């Protein structure tokens, strides 16, 4: 069954966008922004590998949703794409770079061309919202000075305010990050991800920690920012309506393997039942 599901999208033609996501035309053709081949990761603490020969490709401007049951390897795959988790085997080409061959500053520069939004937001609670957003540009020149907004260059502060304006939180720039609500906190995390002007954004369950109403609001804003900027997006979600509405293509993982790769508009209930068993 798995084999019939995998690459079904490819058999049906090029992926398109789901009108429900407010999308325009499909992603432009060209070399993929992310090309992952045969990724394997085994943490050695279970009987099977978390990722077992996973291959996916994300084109420029494409929005891809990664779905799958708990433990399928979605979060690990996202982390392997930036080598936050080191894959045991396989290749990762990120924005044209062979990521696995990179070390030190070259690896940091490659990462800096991406943004990452985490499920738990991962803000530094004791610092201000503005400082947290400026952290998104730590990789740039004189990055160390950006640890706190008080020391950051004027250009970095202005850019951070601009990013905060895009998520509608300029008025909270001075507030400590640990005094924010869940929705505000995740919007700050999105602003931080946009701070470095990324071409590709990863998001790991971006609204899983928010209540349904706020989660919907934040997800809509997030998807709008990504699409209006023409950015590439790879995100994981347990909320299938989000996965289908905000992506061009759905890739499903089950037990560390890709079991479905299809345009979002073509994914039906039977496919999802097959993924989640």
């Amino acid at each position: 069954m798995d084999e019939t599901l995998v690459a079904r999208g490819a058999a049906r033609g090029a992926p398109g966008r789901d009108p429900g996501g407010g999308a325009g035309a499909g992603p432009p053709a060209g070399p993929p922004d992310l090309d992952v081949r045969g990724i394997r990761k085994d943490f050695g603490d279970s009987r099977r590998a978390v990722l077992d020969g996973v291959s996916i490709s994300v084109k420029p401007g494409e929005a891809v949703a990664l779905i799958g049951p708990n433990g399928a390897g979605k979060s690990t795959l996202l982390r392997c794409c930036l080598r936050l988790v080191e894959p045991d085997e396989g290749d990762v080409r990120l924005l044209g770079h062979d990521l696995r061959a990179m070390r030190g500053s070259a690896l940091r520069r490659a990462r800096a061309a991406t943004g990452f939004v985490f499920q738990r937001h991962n803000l530094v609670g004791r610092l201000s919202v503005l400082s947290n957003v400026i952290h998104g540009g730590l990789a740039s020149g004189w990055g160390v000075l950006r640890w706190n907004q008080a020391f950051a260059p004027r250009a970095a502060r202005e850019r951070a305010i601009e990013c905060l304006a895009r998520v509608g939180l300029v008025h909270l720039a001075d507030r400590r990050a640990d005094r924010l609500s869940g929705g505000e906190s995740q919007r700050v995390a999105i602003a931080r991800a946009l701070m470095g002007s990324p071409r590709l954004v990863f998001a790991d369950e971006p609204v899983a920690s928010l209540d349904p109403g706020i989660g919907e609001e934040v997800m809509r804003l997030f998807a709008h920012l990504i699409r209006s900027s023409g950015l590439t997006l790879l995100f994981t979600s347990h909320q299938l309506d989000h996965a289908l509405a905000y992506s061009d293509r759905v890739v499903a993982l089950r037990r560390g393997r890709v079991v479905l790769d299809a345009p979002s508009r073509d994914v039906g209930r039977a496919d999802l039942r097959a993924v989640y068993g």
Partner: protein
Amino acid sequence: MADPSPPPLPVLPPRLALSPARFAVGLPLLALLVLAVERAWTCGGELAKGAPDMARILDEMWPPSFVRAGTVARLMFETASMAVAGAAVGCAASFLLAFLAAKNLSPHPLAYYLSRAAISFFRTVPDLVWAIFFVVAVGLGPVAGTLAIVVDTMGFCGRFYADAMEETDPGPREALVASGAGRFGVVLAAVVPAALPAMVNASMFALEKAVRASVVLGLVGAGGIGIELKASMDMFQFSEATTIILAIFVLVLGVEQLSALVRRRIL
């Protein structure tokens, strides 16, 4: 209708049983306690014999003499300077050492083990022993005392800073690594702000500890007011000793108040 049968009682955990293993551990501990009490009783006898002398000395200590107030003030300033400089340099060195000694930040396992071993060594050797070592190495005076405080502070703060850094939430660190930040940037932006309350707390305790140490280090010639206090006591100038003790009290109390103020502001 109510159920007439009462709910079953929960199974109680077993009572403390005196197993042979517990007996083997408990008996030597009991013997040690008996020996300690016996020793204390002997000390108690000596205390009773010395009580009249104690009363006489206390009587002679009051009122305090301010004849050598100028010297006492100069030495108190030297004592406070030793404490502040030693604690400040020790805290700065501890920060660098803690960066190596925090498991989640250390660049290499060897660096982790060596720095942890150094911190343990600095902590287990008493400050008075360090002072004797530095007096021999650099000569009598406040430099030896300051160096002793630096090393003692590194042993104290190094451990607390490293533990505080290890306990920080890994999430913000991962977020900054994902954005391409370097190791130093990650430490400054994500680790230090999160560990700051614990680090400030440890630093303030280190300063209080340094002030108390700087008073005592003079006894081995490592600068500060200690030598003056010892000289006053040795020469039976108890009223001068009172002045020194009061000055020490004011200094320690002042530092404790300052420390409490800083904690309130930052924590």
